């Protein structure tokens, strides 16, 4: 068998030279670009050229700190590397002048420093010791924000394709055993042990390895970040899976809403083909493997494995009845193994570092690390990789930096439309598949949306049901009809027309749909309702009995009033009201006629004295 030693040594040398030069690195993941990273890049190139500075300009993908995008890193030889946050194009001039020309970092813009072997600067937080990073681990995300995702040289210089090289030297059964021993479980939501799944694949001439990159859960973007930041790791994971189960063809089903991920995957595939890592007789081992990309066409249900297979086949993306499971009869009727992006991306690390290394992280039943996306009403939104078993409190209050505007934490939603809302009482639950399941939520793909006191839990349940109802494919009755009926009831409650028996009906519908729907989408769609009913029943009752929305969200239940003592009679609200519901003499307290009020909230926005309240 051929090995990659020579080319790897060359790339390692290149990489070493690259990082020993003065360089500026811009974060160009989708989030960085959305925040203005591409404009920063253009300004940098222009000004560095105009001044004739001796500095390299490179880019990387998302380092995970979405709340500080656009991010720029400056590394000078012999000095700590400094990560700057909120760097917009107009800040480039000062940044170059100070850091590159005068060798002094701009302290007030610096987010973190990575000292390496150099003496740290005083007054800048050290990344590994910061509250955001100290509880994190960097394994599957280790290249994110560190290497250039469009360069196979960077990937191979940092241990890339060592996994497949190692795997090809041993028997395919040994590869499956190694993955089994690592304890890796599916990162897409279900948490099925990956090695066991691989061992179920039926014998046959033709088999497929499929990657589910149809990340559709609202509030989840870890797969996008991995695809954009380390596309080769996903390819390598699929190659190892292909070798383990005896497949010669792989498909990546990626949602069309991720154009940058698709572009970088295509580049990675072309580079791997050039290096003889994809194609026939890979590294002279006799193993053939090719990967194709299929762009999804916008249907949430295609994240369900059998619906995804139908979609690749060019059919309507409706789930199939199981059994037979895809491992027996999958894509085009052939045995197929299907895993999620993060699962595949973990595989090369496991094979390279060994299953013991991986199994040392995490809890007894949930091994390794998990990537989460923390969003919603939290100070630090972003991507993070943490060891399994960390508590929700650590994630939200240490890494996430607490709730925005010092408001009160109410709940965290885990697992998207299939997951549930976890209240404050359970913040100290260690995160793993089983404890989240016991709370009625799921790990899901890793989206965590934080909600504060201003979020109405009935409204949240309605939001998710509205989503699943729209995305239900219509094949089975419990899901098609059940989601519709549950949504109607929730709408009624939010409109103040609910009755107490609605709660019992909802409860029953939840149980029936869970046990009778055909696929994962239907079986889990009641979770948002079931968990809010379980933990926030008082809010439902307030909507029904008192016709009151405690969070002040459901507009039909709100009443706007002007505080007589605070109102100065300036007339701003009167002019803003489109319904003519506000009356009052100048410099006298005004009044709102609740009959005429359409509850648009325009008056509150205009009032400078906080004299208008809604309750």
């Amino acid at each position, binding site marked *: 068998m051929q090995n990659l030693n020579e080319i790897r040594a060359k790339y390692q040398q290149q990489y070493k030279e690259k990082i020993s030069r003065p360089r500026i690195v811009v974060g160009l993941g989708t989030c960085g670009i959305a925040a203005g990273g591409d404009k920063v890049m253009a300004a940098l190139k222009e000004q560095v050229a105009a001044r004739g500075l001796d500095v390299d300009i490179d880019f990387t993908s998302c380092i995970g700190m*979405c709340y500080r*995008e656009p991010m720029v890193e400056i590394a000078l030889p012999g000095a700590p590397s400094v990560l700057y946050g909120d760097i917009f194009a107009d800040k480039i001039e000062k940044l170059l002048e100070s850091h590159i020309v005068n060798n002094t970092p701009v302290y007030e813009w610096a987010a973190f420093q990575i000292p390496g072997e150099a003496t740290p600067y005083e007054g800048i937080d050290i990344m590994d010791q910061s509250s955001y990073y100290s509880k994190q681990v960097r394994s599957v995300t280790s290249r994110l924000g560190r290497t250039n995702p469009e360069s196979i040289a960077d990937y191979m210089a940092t241990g890339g394709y060592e996994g497949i090289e190692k795997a090809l030297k041993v028997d395919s059964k040994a590869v499956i055993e190694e993955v089994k021993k690592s304890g890796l479980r599916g990162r897409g939501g279900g948490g099925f042990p990956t090695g066991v799944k691989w061992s179920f694949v039926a014998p046959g001439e033709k088999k497929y390895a499929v990657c589910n990159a149809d990340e559709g859960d609202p509030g989840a973007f870890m797969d996008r970040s991995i695809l954009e930041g380390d596309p080769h790791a996903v390819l390598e994971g699929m190659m190892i899976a292909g070798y383990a189960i005896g497949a010669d063809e792989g498909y990546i089903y990626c949602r069309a809403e991720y154009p940058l991920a698709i572009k970088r995957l295509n580049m990675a595939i072309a580079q791997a083909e050039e290096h003889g890592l994809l194609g026939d007789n890979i590294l002279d081992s006799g193993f053939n493997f090719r990967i194709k990309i299929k762009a999804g*066409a916008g249907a949430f249900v295609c994240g369900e494995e059998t619906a995804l297979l139908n979609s690749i086949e060019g059919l309507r993306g409706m789930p199939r009845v199981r059994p037979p499971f895809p491992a027996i009869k999958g894509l085009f009727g052939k045995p197929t193994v299907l895993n999620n992006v993060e699962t595949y991306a973990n595989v090369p690390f496991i094979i390279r570092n060994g299953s013991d290394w991986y199994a040392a992280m995490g809890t007894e039943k949930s091994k390794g690390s998990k990537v989460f996306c923390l969003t919603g009403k939290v100070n630090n*939104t972003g991507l993070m990789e943490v060891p399994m078993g960390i508590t929700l409190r650590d994630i939200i209050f240490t890494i996430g930096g607490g709730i925005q505007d010092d408001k009160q934490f109410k709940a965290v939603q885990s697992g998207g439309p299939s997951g549930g809302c976890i209240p404050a009482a359970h913040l100290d639950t260690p995160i793993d598949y089983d404890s989240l399941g016991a709370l009625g939520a799921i790990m899901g793909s890793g989206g965590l949306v934080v909600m504060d006191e201003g979020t109405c839990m009935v409204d949240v349940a309605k939001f998710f049901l509205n989503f699943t109802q729209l995305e239900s494919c219509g094949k089975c009755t419990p899901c098609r009809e059940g989601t519709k009926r549950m949504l109607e009831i929730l709408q009624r409650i939010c409109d103040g027309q609910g009755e107490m028996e609605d709660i019992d009906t909802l409860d029953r519908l939840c149980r029936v749909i869970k046990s009778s729907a055909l696929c994962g989408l239907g079986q889990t769609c009641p979770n948002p309702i079931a968990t809010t009913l379980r933990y926030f029943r008082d809010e439902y009752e307030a909507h029904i009995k008192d016709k009151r929305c405690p969070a002040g969200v459901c507009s039909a239940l709100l009443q706007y009033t002007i505080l007589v003592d605070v109102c100065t009679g300036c007339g701003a609200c009167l002019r803003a009201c489109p319904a003519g519901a506000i009356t009052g003499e100048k410099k006298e307290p005004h009044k709102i006629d609740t009959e005429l009020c359409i509850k648009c909230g325009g008056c509150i926005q205009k009032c400078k004295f906080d004299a208008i309240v809604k309750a």
Partner: protein
Amino acid sequence: MASCTCGETTDQSKEAAMQELFDQYRDYKGGLIPVLQEAQNIYGYLPKEVLQQIAKEMRIPFSKVFGVCTFYAQFHLKPRGRNIIRVCLGTACHVRGGSKIFEAAQEELGVGQGGTTEDLKFTLETVACIGACGLSPCMMINDDTHGRLQPKQVAGIFKTYE
């Protein structure tokens, strides 16, 4: 005899692109969805005649072609604007006021969900998550993502598109 040829050249190049597409995907397993995606890129939407041509060339019953393109949110049977605005109403954007962005967009363009402006400049849609939750509320215009939006910025962003 002289005949009106305006518009014909573009039709011809579109027709040629379609033929190329069929040659590429005719024997490709599961080729219907990529063909529909490419055809929509060529025509901007999927006119009935194009769907009939696809059915014939791909040897797939028209009912199946129609079934597939009505199943997926990505396919459109009516003409669309030159710029597609997709305002995110996913969970993270929802809790951070995504609906206010959508309302501002509706007001600015004078069209509702799924609507296209009369000058065919914009089509306004909603999307359930574009994976930029860290920058919520956000929207996508064509392939550009705009994040950390406030309702009053919306009009200015639209002006930068032709």
